[in-house]
């Protein structure tokens, strides 16, 4: 147990040091996630929002929460893995006595830590610009939101990791990532709270894993109405599907692995 902790610590610390080198790049990536704030500016002035009974203040809190959650659930494992595979860096990594997935997971968590100061700054800026939206969530909600956001990260990580495993069969598996991003964009609640969706679409969306990555934690943090039990149940079901799926794909893929050019 202690040795596992030691490995985890070493992985995280080394990846964090690596990420700090790229902090300017990470800042640019973080800036490219401004979509929720853009949607806030649209929805807070849209008559349709008022007609649905959602106040500008509620929109502000929801989309700010969505912005923060998005920052900590961004996943890029398929690109990192594909590049390592194509450049032949995979072989030495596979020789290490540590399943490869932990290295990539640590890199993601380290990147999230690098984003933290930027996110804090953006939240402060937002509250300065829209002071009436400032709020502090209740401790229960905050804890649940943090848990939901972290589980949401693992859900999107596992979902993309499943596609990543196709790198063992194809050189361009990352092209398939768009087919994950598109449903994410329209079903996660990034563009509008799911409460505004027509009932049938909303119910369909809630069956998919995508709202768990954004809508659930954002709604928990912003104080909106949400069936948290049902939300966490969906997360559990999808985790139960994705973890074995990833294990099966990983084992089949490694057995097939013959290094680039081989």
């Amino acid at each position, binding site marked *: 147990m202690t040795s596992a902790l030691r490995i985890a610590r070493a992985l995280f610390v080394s990846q964090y040091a690596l990420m700090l080198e790229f902090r300017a*790049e990470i800042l*640019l*990536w973080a*800036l*490219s*996630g*401004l*979509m929720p704030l*853009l949607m806030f*500016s*649209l929805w*807070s*002035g*849209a*008559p*349709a929002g008022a*007609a*649905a009974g959602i106040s500008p203040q509620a929109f502000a809190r929801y989309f700010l929460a969505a912005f923060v959650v998005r920052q900590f659930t961004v996943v890029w494992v398929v690109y990192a893995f594909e590049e390592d595979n194509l450049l032949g860096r995979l072989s030495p990594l596979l020789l290490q006595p540590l399943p490869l997935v932990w290295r990539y997971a640590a890199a993601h968590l380290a990147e999230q830590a690098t984003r933290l100061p930027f996110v804090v700054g953006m939240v402060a800026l937002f509250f300065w610009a829209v002071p009436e939206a400032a709020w502090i969530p209740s401790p229960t909600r905050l804890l649940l939101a943090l848990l939901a956001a972290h589980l949401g990260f693992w859900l999107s990580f596992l979902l993309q990791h499943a596609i990543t495993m196709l790198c063992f069969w194809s050189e361009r598996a990352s*092209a398939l990532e*768009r*087919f994950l991003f*598109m*449903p994410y*964009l*329209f079903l996660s609640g990034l*563009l*509008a709270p799911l409460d*505004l*969706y027509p009932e049938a*679409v909303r119910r369909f969306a809630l069956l998919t894993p995508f709202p768990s990555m954004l809508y659930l934690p954002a709604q928990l943090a912003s104080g909106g109405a949400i069936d948290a039990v049902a939300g966490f149940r969906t997360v559990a079901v999808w985790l139960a599907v994705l973890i074995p799926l990833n294990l099966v794909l990983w084992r089949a893929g490694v057995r097939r692995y013959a290094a680039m050019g081989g």
Partner: protein
Amino acid sequence: MVRISTIRRHGRSIARFWSSSLAAEMEYQLNLLIEVAATLITLAGSLFTLSLFFGHGQKLGGWSWEAALVVLGIYTLLNGFSSTLLRPNLGNLVKQVQSGSLDFVLLKPMDSQIWLSLRTLSPWGLPEMLLGLALVVVGTIRSGARPDAPALLTGALMLLAGIAILYSLWFVLAATSIWFVKIWNATEVLRSLLAAGQFPVSAYPATLRVVFSTILPVAFLTTVPAEAILGLATGGSVVASLVLAGFSLLGSRALWRFALRHYTSASS
């Protein structure tokens, strides 16, 4: 002065470039299927998102649903244009600075900005351009606007001006890679900010409207062309768009010349 023969020579070269890149891309026919599927899903999702703003018979920033479709159509058209020409070419520019092969481009008997901007053509954005155009037509007809020849001409002119501005934004960003080698992430920022153009600019709060007509001229990319087609454009915005387009092109040219003076090739 630019001589006619120079223009003819450039035109002939570009035609060759494009036919050879088309031939190369046609090797990947499965890609076409993937691109068409992705474009259709994205468009369906954007239409759905847009429709949420028009629930309960509401309007968005004074625009009707049908008129807003024209804006979304032009956005889709420009997005397809970016994937066809801007992204592949200007992505290459960044790579060439990184690898040092820009030197060879500069030695060619062709204008380097034109070579870098038009060298390849990726056909995978074409389905998106066609769908965008279809959406513009559908939105215009259903909104009840019957654009006459001058309105259509102004619309086309505004669209060209929008393309010029969009090109300049991309080119300026890519050209700064002469100084900041790893600039490609910045294009992701640009892309995400340009997504604001899916909606009529009047739907945004006043401060953002100012930003979108000055620093980041999203308004001139989609809203003004849509207004022109629908016959709603004011003379002021038409002139402003043309002036801005002219300045952007000249600006991109000036920046490129300035950048080349600072270019010291890779590893030196």
